[in-house]
């Protein structure tokens, strides 16, 4: 470990961006799954098309939850398809109440949370980029990390986060009217929705691995350094 170089390494902007991302990611995932519940399937096409369906979560009968992924059917009762509904019972719904905002089915409010924190998510990225430009050399920011870590941070910052924002914007009919290429580069609107979901999975995977690594490599010191900068 490079103890000496660890001190004073995170400028305030980086720390603010980091924690804004943590908060925004948690809320975006929870509210995003709420939104997904309103149309619990993903297609590889422009318009909705069951022929190109990659994922479908449903309930063929009361008390049974089923997930169809790439044509394979899994019984997922209790976890996906037939789940706690946030109103004291269980019902046909893709994702369970304990992971969505609000807990009960409410597309309107889920969208409000999602669309507000999407701005915070994007603003944090802009702030991170501003810090990067100010620190000038990319190398100094990432030099302290192992190559694998460096790669993971770079992919998250430069690929996954911009992709999450871009695929989300590709779902906007208003933006589509001005930038036809935006949904097109993702294979159409429904395909963009699929990429949006896949990016969420990738970001959650990063979140889990990153948290695990912090916990196993001096968690107190690393948390402190990301909070106080020292």
């Amino acid at each position, binding site marked *: 470990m490079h103890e000496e170089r660890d001190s004073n390494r995170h400028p305030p902007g980086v720390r603010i961006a980091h924690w804004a991302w943590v908060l925004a990611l*948690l*809320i975006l995932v*929870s*509210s995003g799954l709420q*939104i*997904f519940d*309103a*149309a619990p399937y993903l297609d590889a096409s*422009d*318009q*909705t*098309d069951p022929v190109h369906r990659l994922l479908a979560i449903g309930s063929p009968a009361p008390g049974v939850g089923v997930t169809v992924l790439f044509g394979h059917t899994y019984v997922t009762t209790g976890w996906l398809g037939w789940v706690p509904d*946030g109103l004291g019972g269980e019902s046909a719904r893709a994702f369970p*109440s*304990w*992971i*969505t*905002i*609000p*807990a*009960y089915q*409410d*597309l*309107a*409010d889920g*969208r*409000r*949370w999602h*669309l*507000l924190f*999407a*701005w915070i998510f994007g603003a944090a990225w802009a702030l991170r980029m501003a810090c990067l430009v100010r620190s000038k050399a990319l190398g100094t920011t990432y030099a302290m990390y192992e190559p694998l870590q460096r790669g993971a941070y770079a992919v998250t910052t430069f690929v996954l986060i911009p992709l999450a924002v871009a695929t989300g*914007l590709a*779902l*906007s*009919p*208003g*933006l*589509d*009217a*001005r*930038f*036809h290429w935006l949904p097109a580069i993702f294979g159409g*609107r*429904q395909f963009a*929705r699929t990429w949006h979901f896949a990016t969420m999975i990738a970001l959650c995977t990063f979140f889990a691995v990153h*948290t695990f690594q*912090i*916990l*196993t490599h001096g*968690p*107190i010191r690393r*948390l402190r350094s990301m909070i106080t900068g020292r």
Partner: protein
Amino acid sequence: MKRRLFLAGGSGALLAGCSPIGTALNDHASVRRVLRAAEALDARVIGGSGLAREYTLADVRRDPPVTSLPVPHSDRYAHLIASRYEGFSLRVDGLVQHPLRLTYRVLQGARKVTMITRHDCVEGWSVVVAWTGIPLARILAAARPLRAARFAVFHCMDRDETGAPYYESLDVHQAYHPQTLLVLEMNGRPLSPDHGAPVRLCVPLQLGYKSAKWIERIELVPSLRSLYGGNGGYWEDRGYEWFAGI
């Protein structure tokens, strides 16, 4: 080791705590006000300019899904269907110089345009539809809105189970957009009752709930505040964004 376990438990609780905390905050008036802040920002950044992508007939799906409220079940609507909309007329009034009353026959006889666009539902699905109808701009031009008219409100024939009427609204800018259509035909056939016959709206730059069905009256108003819940639409009064461009 204890510290690690503590932190692991802490981050687990963070994840699991997100839903209950968010749910608890969701009903606070001040939180709701903050959540609503994004809409104004979205409206400003996304706006209502540009032209929705147009598709070809080959892209049109034959069995477009039906959502929203059930078909109006009043005696009057049943009678309209039975009479093939013989007694129907669309009123255009409010802040206009020339209030209009357009019969179904007059609407059918008007010069129509066809546009094949994608209908994006707020739920997340999309469907390509061939819409045939009259650009709303043409009808508004005939009615000559007054300067004070800032919004077009679409009063519909359907009611929900509590008796609340369905309505929608657009600002004048979006109402005059060349792709904002008063639709009479869908995929080459007259609108069916479940898709909003005899007249519905199509607003391809916004999500599907702005494309109101079963329209019987277009009212031009200076403000949306005094109408029903004051948010400019049935769904808007139930928490959805008035600006539905994303």
